[in-house]
């Protein structure tokens, strides 16, 4: 029996085990990052300006007062957060959350929890920008129609705006979901035993490269299923525009 035949079953089983972990990271990330992303997008669109009362004072053209009175702290802080998270590698964030607590003396932090924090935060920031785009794409007339029909802001959002936002964001969301499937591979750098870690394990112990390429098929199938689901979803919402 050749080495390949000998290893095929154990490799497959091991990769399937890794797939379970990959799937877990994927679903947990979505579960937390989608609602968090929505909250972050609301934050980035927040119009709260606590110094607005200074507005009357800059009639003489004082630019500094104009800037302060228009300062929106929530929106500003959220934009900084999104900038930092999107502006640095996810790998770096994984290492920061995975190893950072130990460095400053916090012991016993679960590595998986650390990975989840990094993934959720990272993806929530990307999602927030997609949500923002989707929400801003809903014409102002929709809000005005709701307003003159006496609907509350909550009713307006959930009964009228939300489904239109969902329709707008399906294509970019499909992209993000697929990217996430492959980004889970980064977790192997801090000892999370997902697909890629399991494939690399054979590289080290049995000196074979093919399990790594074989693992690509698992990602490919995963993404293929997602693509089909997204296409169905898109079709389902194609009855309106």
């Amino acid at each position, binding site marked *: 029996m050749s080495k390949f035949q000998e290893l095929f079953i154990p490799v497959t089983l091991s990769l399937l085990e890794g797939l379970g972990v990959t799937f877990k990271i994927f679903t947990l990330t979505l579960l937390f990052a989608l609602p968090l992303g929505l909250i972050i997008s609301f934050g980035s669109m927040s119009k709260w300006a606590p110094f607005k009362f200074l507005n009357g004072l800059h009639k003489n053209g004082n630019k500094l007062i104009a800037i302060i009175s228009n300062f929106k702290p929530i929106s500003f802080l959220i934009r900084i957060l999104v900038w930092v998270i999107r502006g640095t590698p996810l790998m770096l964030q994984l290492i920061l959350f995975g190893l950072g607590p130990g460095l400053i003396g916090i012991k016993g932090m679960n590595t998986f929890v650390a990975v989840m924090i990094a993934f959720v935060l990272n993806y929530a920031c990307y999602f927030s920008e997609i949500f923002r785009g989707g929400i801003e794409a809903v*014409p102002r*007339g*929709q809000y*005005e*129609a709701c*307003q*003159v*029909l*006496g*609907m*509350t*802001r909550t*009713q307006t959002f959930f*009964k*009228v705006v939300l*489904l*239109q936002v969902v*329709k707008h964001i399906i294509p970019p969301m499909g992209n993000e979901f697929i990217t996430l499937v492959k980004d889970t591979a980064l977790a192997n750098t801090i000892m999370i035993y997902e697909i890629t870690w399991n494939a690399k394990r054979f590289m080290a112990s049995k000196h074979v490269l093919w399990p790594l390429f074989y693992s690509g098929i698992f990602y490919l199938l995963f993404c293929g299923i997602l693509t089909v689901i997204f296409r169905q979803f898109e079709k389902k919402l194609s*009855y*309106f*525009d």
Partner: protein
Amino acid sequence: MSILNVTNLSKHFGKLQVLKDINFSMEEGQVVSIIGSSGSGKTTLLRCINMLENANGGKIYLDGKLFIDADSSVKYTPGQLRTKQLSLGLVFQDFNLFPQYNVLENVTLAPRLLAKERSDYKTRKKEILYEIEENAKSILASVGLSEKLESYPCQLSGGQKQRVSIARALALKPRILFFDEPTSALDPELTGEILKVIRQLAAEHITMIIVTHEIDFAYSVSDKVIFMDKGVIAEEGTPDEVLKNPKNPRTQAFLQKLS
């Protein structure tokens, strides 16, 4: 007693004064048309009365009661605003139908949400929803859309969309129904069907204020015509007075340009 009384209403966007000291009133069952060139402030006037814009000064009375007080700095709570808004109806130039709901759902959505606040909603839910649906169907029938209840907005012509939007506003039984250039987004051959519906509503003595460019229509349907120019009411009176024998040179110039 006037159903609507607008006094000293003013509005500015930054330094641009869009409405200056607007005063007018109307009686229940009347149809008032507002004409004027674009930028004259007529749409802003409508939006201020419907609270889509905050006026900067003046008072509006509805049924003799203070409705909007733009002179006071007191802000209305969202709840108060909603109650006020429900007594008025507005038909937009570009329809603003809800694309994900079919024709019937577009008309019943707001009444259904409103019904949830009724004290007898839990015990009489079925009956209430049935009443709302029947009411919506009969309004849609009156604007000639009985065949289209299940259609989605994207499957309708512009004229049909605008009729749905009229039905949607009517379903809440507003004290006054406002139209913001209801035919301006329509192909010329479709304006007729909208004007016919408005004429029909006028015959039912629904109180209406219509911002329009259709002078002939304004002449035949209105009890009163207001001509606005540069943020002020330049002339107002019966259709004959304003449209056939205008006294103000600006009204004369405006009408001349159109004919």
